[in-house]
């Protein structure tokens, strides 16, 4: 009995649900009021990339293993330093790829 009454109330509420309101110029009115979107400032990204590159350059420049690895790589020797350099470069590339894919996914959603 209680279920029946509950169903009757549900049915009654559904039957008296609000109908969608006809547009009647509302949409045009809204679109006329929409302000132009300001383009996102690019300078923070540029400064970040520059600062990161400089920090990386100074850090790697003072690390002997990086210089040795780089020189061995150029001369075609697969030393431990070269492998370490290749591994860290590959790791950073994968991280950047994962980041780019996540950002792209977020923007698509």
């Amino acid at each position, binding site marked *: 009995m209680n279920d*029946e*009454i*509950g169903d*009757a*109330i*549900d049915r*009654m*509420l*559904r039957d*008296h*649900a*609000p*109908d*969608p*309101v*006809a*547009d009647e110029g*509302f*949409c045009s*009115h*809204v*679109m006329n*009021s*929409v*302000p132009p*979107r300001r383009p996102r400032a690019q300078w923070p990204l540029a400064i970040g990339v520059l600062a990161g590159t400089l920090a990386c350059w100074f850090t790697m420049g003072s690390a002997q293993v990086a210089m040795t690895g780089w020189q061995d790589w150029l001369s075609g020797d697969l030393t431990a330093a070269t492998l370490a350099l290749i591994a860290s470069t590959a790791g950073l590339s994968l991280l950047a790829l994962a980041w780019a894919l996540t950002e792209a996914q*977020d*923007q*698509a*959603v």
Partner: protein
Amino acid sequence: MADRQSESRIDKALVARALLADDARAFEQLVRRHQGMVRAQLRRLLHGDAARADDLAQETFLLAWRKLPQFRGEARFSTWLYRIAYSCFLQSMRNRQHAAPDTSDNAAATQPSVSGEVALRLDLERAMRGLSSDEQAVLLHVAQLGLSHDEAAYVLSMPLGTVKSHARRGKDKLRTLLADWQDSSMEGHGS
């Protein structure tokens, strides 16, 4: 269900176009698709005040345009809009310090001599006004706009348990307030 999913996919594609290509026409499509229900929601919340509801609906869509980059697709776009609209409604109520007089008792006493569907609608509206504002909001979104309890909790910024208890209590009150109609409805179904 499949319709809802495909509608949701279309909305997400339009949002992506509006964001990536800064395409105002894509946003216009979104407004066209959802203005009807957002305005209906606000009109019901404002007890039929169409002019004020439309002002709030416009505010809702302007806010949606500004906040569009924050839409992450966790909820359906329509649910996200309902949430913004409900926030605008609450803000407007706070600004106006508007306390709607409770006329349900008087109104029930002066029931006009209309019959059938019109009388039932009037009675339901009166009975709904007899509920607390939270119960009204929950029943509107769950039972009338077709949102799930989870979605209603998101729109109304309430805990899920609170939404469920408001829905149950609201229906219990409606059952009491509409007892006469239920009796005749049951008889109608029984015969």
